[in-house]
């Protein structure tokens, strides 16, 4: 499923960044530039809700994150808790009923539409990409496609940053697009049990191994399913 657009977004962001710590804001700026949105924010999340802002393109995007964090309600909070995409093209119409407290603050701040995209790989929940605009209006099909490609890029970026020093190679090379075939996700589950690590770490282990062995991750996943490749810690006398 090589999403060329996702790979293109990542390599452009990596090329424009001086340092790894610049990557999130670089990605958000590229997103705000590519789409008809006013600003973009990136927050960490878990199933209880947003867990801190990583970056935001402008003051209002930051305000959007903080407002919801403080109130405990809003589209991004819903997206965090449910893991679902929440598209709100016209907050003035929908928000007062759904999130009364948030609606007041957001509309006063001039935020008229919010598109909250969960950054997750199944049960691996990493964050939320929040796009907002100062005028109402839905994203077109092509714009939604692009927004989702940015969310895929952000997902990979957060996975990479989470790996920290364990990250393999420079981001431009070690951030290949996610191979979304069923086997990769099944193998992630198997590796997490065998290696005794989280699903996120299991996915990173798979990706690192595929990278060092110059193999497609789908092929490696198939070997894990067939028991040919094993991630169990080696035992003595075995």
């Amino acid at each position, binding site marked *: 499923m090589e999403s060329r657009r996702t790979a293109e977004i990542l390599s452009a962001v990596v090329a424009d960044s001086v340092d790894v710590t610049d990557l999130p804001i670089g990605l958000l700026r590229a997103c705000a530039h590519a789409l008809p949105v006013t600003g973009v924010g990136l927050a960490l999340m878990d199933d209880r809700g947003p867990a801190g802002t990583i970056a935001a393109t402008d003051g209002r995007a930051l305000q959007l994150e903080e407002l919801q964090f403080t109130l405990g309600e809003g589209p991004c909070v819903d997206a965090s808790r449910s893991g679902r995409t929440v598209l709100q093209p016209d907050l003035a119409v929908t928000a007062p009923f759904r999130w009364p407290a948030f609606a007041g603050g957001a509309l006063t701040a001039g935020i008229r539409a919010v598109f909250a995209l969960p950054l997750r790989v199944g*049960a691996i929940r990493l964050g939320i990409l929040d796009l907002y605009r100062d005028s109402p209006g839905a994203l077109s099909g092509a714009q939604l496609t692009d927004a989702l490609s940015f969310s895929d890029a952000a997902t990979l970026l957060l996975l990479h940053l989470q790996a920290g020093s364990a990250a393999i190679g420079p981001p431009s090379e070690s951030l290949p697009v996610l191979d979304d075939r069923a*086997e990769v996700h099944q193998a992630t*589950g*198997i590796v997490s*049990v065998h290696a005794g690590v989280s699903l996120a770490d299991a996915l990173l282990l798979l990706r690192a191994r595929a990278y060092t062995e110059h193999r497609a991750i789908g092929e490696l996943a198939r070997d894990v*399913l067939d028991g040919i490749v094993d991630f169990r810690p080696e035992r003595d006398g075995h």
Partner: protein
Amino acid sequence: MVREQRLAEVFVELADTLVEEFDVVDFLQTLTERCVELVDTDAAGLMLDDQRGHLQVVAYTDESARLLELFELQKAEGPCLDCFASGQVIANVDLADARSRWPVFAGAAREVGFAVSHALPLRLRRQVVGALNLFTVAPVRLTDDHLAVVQGLADIATIGLLHERAVRDRVVLAEQLQTALHSRIVIEQAKGVLSARGGTSVGEAFRLMRTHARRTGEALTVVAEAVVAQELGVEELRGGRPGTRRGSGAASPGAAS
């Protein structure tokens, strides 16, 4: 000819699934299984628009790697991709004779042992949101009656995706498609976790989770999330004890084998 009574039962079963908190992936899985049961086919898969320009398989009747590969390579070529692009039914494709049109797909499908393939669109007015793909081992064509049944099932799949929230707008559909894709990944991860813990195949792991979901009335995705979070283990799923121990203590003695 499809037995009318069974057909009616299946439609009632599917309609019955469309309650408030139904699980999209479980619903689509049931639908593909009923397809194979009701018409002369041996395998089925359902692919959805991932809204990034690709089709993503979300339900399939058989865990074999080679069947999965057939869905996978239709991201590049094949009847599903063409059906998705055109919105047209592509039925009764003789795979022995399709090499010029889809060289990779036709070759791979023949190697798996399939003789005939069909692709039907999941359509909402002018928008195509996915495709239903069927395979048959024997070189037999589907009758018009059977094709009508399959198209009926494909239409129900689209209705299921819209979650009865009236065909309000594209926004709802986009949210639902994304949810289905995320859920599908959680279920795949849980299959892996469960198979590694219980020493079962991924297919058996899937059956255990679905049976448990049916028994307890929980959504399949919720069961899968509990498996991944280690709140639900192989013993509970096998033992058929009602209810899951969400959240709290009661750690099971994890005897290493």
